């Protein structure tokens, strides 16, 4: 009679095999799943199976083989379309992230949060043009001036208005 642990271990091996072979080339996927299924069946019908120790045995075989399973998956994915698809998806995601980082500040710029920024309150801001007509370069210079005034020596900053 098989112990509940053994049943759980077998289910776990099946689930793991399904997971790491998911969306692989059908021939490779089916071959690996069949082999594992056959191995489990042979083990269950072998004289050494039975009792709770066989459950531990199956779990040990599963966990010790996980790194190899992952390497096998990577080896086989990289040489096929899925690897290219994966890399394309990763590149697209990276491009979207970079675009988002680029676009969001630009939108902020247009909607005028600059009207009330520390840079506008900075002493040097009064000497330059009003915030509405600021260009990006002006704004950058203003931030640099303010930072310089803040971190610079006392008394060396621009005069109070």
């Amino acid at each position, binding site marked *: 009679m098989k112990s509940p642990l053994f049943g759980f271990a077998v289910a776990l091996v099946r689930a793991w095999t399904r997971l790491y072979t998911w969306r692989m080339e059908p021939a490779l996927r089916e071959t690996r799943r*069949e082999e594992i299924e056959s191995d489990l069946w042979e083990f269950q019908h072998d004289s050494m199976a039975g009792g709770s120790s066989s459950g531990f*045995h199956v779990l040990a075989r599963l966990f010790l083989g996980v790194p*190899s399973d992952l390497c096998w998956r990577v080896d086989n994915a990289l040489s096929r379309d899925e690897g290219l698809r994966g890399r394309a998806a990763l590149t697209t995601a990276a491009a979207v992230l970079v675009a988002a980082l680029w676009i969001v500040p630009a939108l902020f710029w247009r909607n005028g949060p600059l009207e009330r920024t520390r840079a506008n309150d900075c002493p040097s801001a009064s000497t330059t043009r009003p915030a509405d007509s600021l260009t990006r370069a002006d704004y950058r210079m203003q931030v640099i001036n303010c930072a310089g005034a803040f971190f610079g020596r006392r008394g060396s900053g621009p005069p109070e208005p």
Partner: protein
Amino acid sequence: MRRKQGSLVPLEIAICISASDRHHQGVNEFHGYEIARYLADDAGRRLLTAYGTLYRALGRLEKMGLLRSRREDPHISARENRPGRRFYSLTAEGEAAAREARKVSTEKTPRRARRRLAPA
């Protein structure tokens, strides 16, 4: 760490040697579970080789041309009401690799023994 192209890891060498031994005993084909049992018996341990490690090694040996595999006739497995097996057999290259590995191991063993015996 990456392996050198064409080099065999100890498990792969053990598979070749074990398959070669069985071949000389008249067993020409074996499935995954059988080879795991052979390896455990040869090494004198109870725990069988992990699933991932074993099937990855078998796949690699097949890619290198040291093993060949075939799927069992589905009618047989259906008749016996069990999952289909994949049978592996050693190729001529595999046999040569096993012979080479045996030669290397026998060359190494006396040197080790001599070193151990020297102080006495």
